[in-house]
């Protein structure tokens, strides 16, 4: 028998039992809808998290700090150590930072200017290192000879969002407890809003030139070293090479953002697979429904099958007819399921997005505007194809038993069946 004929017979047989066929197909539709929407929302969620993380971290910047869980806190880094790091292959740029503990800032009217961290940096290095973040909103970043200056993070200056505590050109007094330091600095620039929440959110920081700091503290040591790598994918290798620069590699810690991100991505991937696996159960239930209904159908059509075999249909022709019916249910159910799955994904994304908006809070750690989570379904052709093929495979597997039952019917017995 020609396949085209088997196909048209199977199609007719399905369309002649409309209610039964639609209910069987509905099972597949629900299964595929669940898979598609969970997969696409999972993917959307994953990409959103990834994007957030990329904004929070410069993926090509490693952060080297002294001390680790494995070793007691060690001394800050020395200039020779910083220079050794500069020579490591794969390192593009190095910017050491000095953090000044207990530094308090006051403006000209003696109001306190709140900075979470005051850091001393080489301005030309840091602007090269973080060219997209370290951008002034007002004023300009001090040149190499401009000592006794200060650059303020956005929030440090605009503490209450409206009126600035200081303006470019104003003087700021810096006091450091325990060092009896009382230094006047000129405000050279105010940084723009960083728009991230990660390690390079400088909104609450203030920066002074490294030379000014070393003069004040009378020593040249660094608490944080930022290392820009030429190829982010090679981050782990470069990090290992940097560890080898130190006598005791366990005495330092290196934050490798891309490794962290890969790990998070892996976890989210697992979560997504887990979600889809749960959704797949509904497709299996649909498969059992197909088996159930097809078994009934084979019993009802016993006589018909007997006639077909009596007039010369082979067992495998009968098998093909019933399997084709099952596959058609899978194809139609799968296609409809893909469409409804896409629809449901958008609907769910819309509803879920309104739930995950952060509450407005008046805290230091208030999320910047761009931090709003948006959940958009992301449809990958892979998932769509996998879901579709899965629907058909489930239909074949569960259709096989009743189809074989039909194919194995003894024609004489089948003709006697009333």
């Amino acid at each position, binding site marked *: 028998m020609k396949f085209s004929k088997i196909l048209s017979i199977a199609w007719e047989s399905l369309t002649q039992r409309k209610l039964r066929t639609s209910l069987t197909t509905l099972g597949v539709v629900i299964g595929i809808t669940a898979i598609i929407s969970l997969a696409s929302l999972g993917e959307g969620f994953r990409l959103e998290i990834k994007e957030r993380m990329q904004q929070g971290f410069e993926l090509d910047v490693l952060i080297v700090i002294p001390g680790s869980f494995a070793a007691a806190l060690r001394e800050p880094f020395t200039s020779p150590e910083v220079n050794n790091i500069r020579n490591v292959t794969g390192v593009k740029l190095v910017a050491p930072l000095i953090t000044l503990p207990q530094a308090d800032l006051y403006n000209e009217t003696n109001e306190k200017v709140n900075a979470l961290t005051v850091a001393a940096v080489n301005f030309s290095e840091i602007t090269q290192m973080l060219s997209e973040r370290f951008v002034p909103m007002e004023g300009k970043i001090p040149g190499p000879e401009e000592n006794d200056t200060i650059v303020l993070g956005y929030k440090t200056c605009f503490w209450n969002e409206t009126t600035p505590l200081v303006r470019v050109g104003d003087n700021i007094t810096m006091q450091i407890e325990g060092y009896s330091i009382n230094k006047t600095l000129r405000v050279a620039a105010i940084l723009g809003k960083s728009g991230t929440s990660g390690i390079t959110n400088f909104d609450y920081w203030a920066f002074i030139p490294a030379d000014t700091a070393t003069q004040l503290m009378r020593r040249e040591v660094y608490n944080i070293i930022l290392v820009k790598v030429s190829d982010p994918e090679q981050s782990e290798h470069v990090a290992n090479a940097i560890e080898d620069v130190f006598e005791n590699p366990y005495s330092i810690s290196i934050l490798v953002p891309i490794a962290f991100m890969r790990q998070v991505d892996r976890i989210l991937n697992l979560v997504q697979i887990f979600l889809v696996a749960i959704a797949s159960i509904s497709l299996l239930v649909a498969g059992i429904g197909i088996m159930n209904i097809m078994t009934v159908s084979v019993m009802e059509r016993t006589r018909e099958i007997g006639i077909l075999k009596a007039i010369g249909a082979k067992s*495998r022709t009968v098998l093909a007819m019933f399997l084709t019916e099952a596959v058609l249910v899978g194809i139609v159910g799968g296609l409809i399921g893909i469409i409804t799955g896409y629809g449901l994904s958008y609907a769910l994304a819309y509803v879920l997005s309104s739930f995950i908006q952060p509450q407005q809070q008046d805290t230091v750690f208030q999320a910047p505007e761009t931090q709003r989570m948006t959940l958009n379904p992301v449809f990958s052709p892979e998932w769509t194809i996998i879901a579709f093929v899965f629907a058909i495979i489930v239909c074949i597997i569960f259709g096989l038993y009743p189809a074989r039952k039909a194919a194995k019917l003894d024609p004489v017995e089948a003709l006697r069946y009333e």
Partner: protein
Amino acid sequence: MATFLEVRDVKKSYRMGKFLVPALRGVSFDVETGEFLSIFGPSGSGKSTLLHLMGGLDRPDEGEIIVDGSNILKLNDDKLAELRLIKIGFVFQFFNLLPRLTALRNVELPLTIAGVPEKESLKRAEKMLRLVGLEDRMNHRPSELSGGEQQRVAIARALISNPKIVLGDEPTGNLDTKTGWEIVQLMKKLNEEKKQTFVVVTHDPHIAEAANRIVHLKDGLIAGIEEAPKGR
């Protein structure tokens, strides 16, 4: 005349729970090419069983059945199906048409199974329906046809692949006497015109009379073979 089908000492019993019910207890006879043979006997004498075996729908427990030179015991299921498709046409007491298909589609079915292109198969099915006098009932479903008309459709279906032998199991058993007689005449006419072999099972003596030969069956055994009662 050449022998088309041989039945050699055929035995067949059915299992009914613990018991074996013998349906055929050693039956032998030949069917000659082109003849119109009738198998006559009371209900339960094993006529249907014999006909099913002759048509390759089932296999004997013992003995041999040779159809057109091939022993059906030596054919696998697929080969048997092929034999039924190409060489044998069945006509049943209860017509056994597919209720969802029109007369035309029912007649076409064996050709569809054989993979004949639709254009040709439809043409041949139409021709066949015309031959059995149903040219104006082609697109009716079985439920819209009378018993006699349904049996004509079944005959047309049996003949569509131009089989060498047509096997009828009480083809008139479900029809009134007049219609039954018409069906027998139709088969007789086809037998004469197309030189196809006919074996018709019946327990109606009037039908049996139309045959060249009558095999009398009783309790699974041949009670006698009667040569053309009225001659021909």
